[in-house]
């Protein structure tokens, strides 16, 4: 359970990057995009972030059913805290 706050921080980190880049892009696009297109582009950004972060987030969970050990999960957490600068 001690990895749970790390999942939250990692999610927030990724979401901040996603939103910042998306807004930069939408500003550049101006009115060049219809409502439907805008929605699909937003979905695209979510798809990329979700699929990219799936592995790391999964490896922060240790549900007993997989052969992932508690030790590995903690190592993953420590590495992610370092690499994504999540210490708060």
């Amino acid at each position, binding site marked *: 359970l001690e990895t*749970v706050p790390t*999942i939250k921080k990692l999610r927030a980190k990724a979401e901040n990057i996603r939103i910042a880049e998306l807004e930069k892009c939408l500003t550049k696009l101006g009115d060049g995009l219809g409502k439907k297109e805008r929605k699909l582009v937003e979905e695209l950004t*979510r798809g990329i972030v*979700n699929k990219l972060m*799936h592995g790391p*987030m*999964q490896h922060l969970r240790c549900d007993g059913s997989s052969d992932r050990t508690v030790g590995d999960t903690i190592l993953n957490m420590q590495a992610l805290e370092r690499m994504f600068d999540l210490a708060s």
Partner: protein
Amino acid sequence: PRDDANKGELMRHLKAGKKCLRENNAQAAFVEFEKALALARKANDTVEEKKAARGLGASAQRQRNFKEAIGYHQLVLKISRRTGEQSGDTEAIGAIADCYTELGDLENGAKYYDRYIARLEADDDEVV
């Protein structure tokens, strides 16, 4: 034309709510989304009802009213169950997990993060 006018007003409140959220005025956003929710319900418009619920959840969460926020994010999931249309569910589940984690309820945080993570790789959380 009456219906159209109501829909117009509904959309204006949703738009205003989003704008307030972007400008970090969560309190004003909450008010806008409340009005939008009432109008969406009156019109039986589940698509916009979900957007309003999502906005209310985000606004409450921004004000650190985490229990209230969980209620609104759960409303998103409830509307999805009612309509069979799951867009936005992944994000709602992640947000519920964030709220439980903020409340120090790591058991429920973990439970919802597990559901969230299981959905990340599958297609595709449409944006509400």
